[in-house]
């Protein structure tokens, strides 16, 4: 196989890795916010259930969770798996896992907000929703951005776990080529690709942080 050919194949895998990354963020960030509300709920039952969910998500390997999400429906309901469900299972597994981490980050940010911000908003007559979305959330985002960046960078690398469901993202393709051609080169190229991907991600996140530097 020519080097160019290999690059093409890896780039194709990269597109799929990026798609896992993007879809996971799209679902897990809002989900994480909702989960953080549940975690902070005054309803003890809801709070307890959410706490348990977070602890399972953080306490077991993501790869195992992916396998459960993918094969679970087959063993439990004899559902036909494979085809489109493979990708759905990957996004579902990643989103549910990352939402747990994001939820804890959101919670730490929301709980770090001074009470005075809520009180000022209340006195000025803002509704609960207005207070949260106009006053609290923007400040929370600024506070938690460095922690979010950490998670997002981890996610880039975690997309390689999709290989466990035989999904042909970049890491799976790398392994295939390496085995078939008995060469080490694809690993180096894949490493470079991941690194560049994360370099861009880090740049974007830094840019976001800088944009919020106008206030303290």
């Amino acid at each position, binding site marked *: 196989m020519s080097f160019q050919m290999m690059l093409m194949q890896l780039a194709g895998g990269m597109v799929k890795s990026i798609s896992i990354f993007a879809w996971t963020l799209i679902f897990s960030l809002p989900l994480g916010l909702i989960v953080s509300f549940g975690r902070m709920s005054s309803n003890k039952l809801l709070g307890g259930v959410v706490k348990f969910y977070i602890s399972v998500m953080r306490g077991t390997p993501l790869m195992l969770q992916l396998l459960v999400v993918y094969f679970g429906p087959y063993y439990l309901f004899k559902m036909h798996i494979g085809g489109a469900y493979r990708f759905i299972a990957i996004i579902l597994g990643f989103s549910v896992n990352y939402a747990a981490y994001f939820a804890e980050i959101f919670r730490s940010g929301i709980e770090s907000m*001074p009470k*005075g911000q809520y009180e*000022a908003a209340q*006195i000025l*007559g803002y509704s609960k929703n*207005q207070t949260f979305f106009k006053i609290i959330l923007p400040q929370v985002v600024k506070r938690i951005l460095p922690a979010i960046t950490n998670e997002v960078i981890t996610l880039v690398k975690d997309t390689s776990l999709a290989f466990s469901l035989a999904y042909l993202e970049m890491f799976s393709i790398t392994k295939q080529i390496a085995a078939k051609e008995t060469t080490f080169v694809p690993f180096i190229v894949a490493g470079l690709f991941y690194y560049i991907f994360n370099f861009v991600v880090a740049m974007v996140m830094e840019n976001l942080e800088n944009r919020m530097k106008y*206030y*303290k």
Partner: protein
Amino acid sequence: MNILEMNHINKKFDKLEVIKDISLSVSEGEILSIIGPSGSGKSTILRCATMLETINGGEIKYLDKQAVRTDDNGNVVYAKGDKMKNIKSNFGLVFQNFNLFPHYSVLKNIMDAPLTVQKRDKKEVYETAKDLLEKMGLSDKADYYPCQLSGGQQQRVSIARALAMKPKILFFDEPTSALDPELTLEILKVIRGLAEEHMTMVIVTHEMNFAREVSSRIIFMEKGVIVEETTPEKMFNSDNQRTREFLGRYSQL
């Protein structure tokens, strides 16, 4: 008609009674100062009046409209929905530590609530905000962010923010406690200016001389009760042992 009326207010934190059966009222144009040692409950009574704290008994009325009442079974019932929203629009509060919104510019801090909450006309609100900034001597700071301002400037913005809502009564919760003496004077000057315009105000303060000079009435509180309530002149020449002791300590400073 009284702008604010508080009757037989009780407030407990767990089992600790911090407000014990306090009644007070404020009529239009009046300036009421509340003084007293730390932990006397003077800030708490302000927080009860502004619904930041839930009372355990009593009644609060604004312009004769009941915001809270206690029914025959001793249950405290707060007004709800639009009725409460209406009542709340009567008052503003200036905090000890300003509580400006750090992510909003000075102008947006002042304009946002009138626009989002009161749904007033943008042009009118802008004019109001500009006037207030000028009054506060902050015309050149409209596009600054709170973190770029001194404490005194921040407090003046927060006063402007409260005034932009056109409240009928303005509460001050130790507005100068976070400021050095120079900045304190800055804020007292602003409040004095409002007094000259006959703004109805309730001021919790440790600035005795200021309270004496600006108030129409002073309440001296201790341990959750009103020890004395009278005019500044009488308060500072009081026969009450405790009042004399407290004010005497201040004059020694």
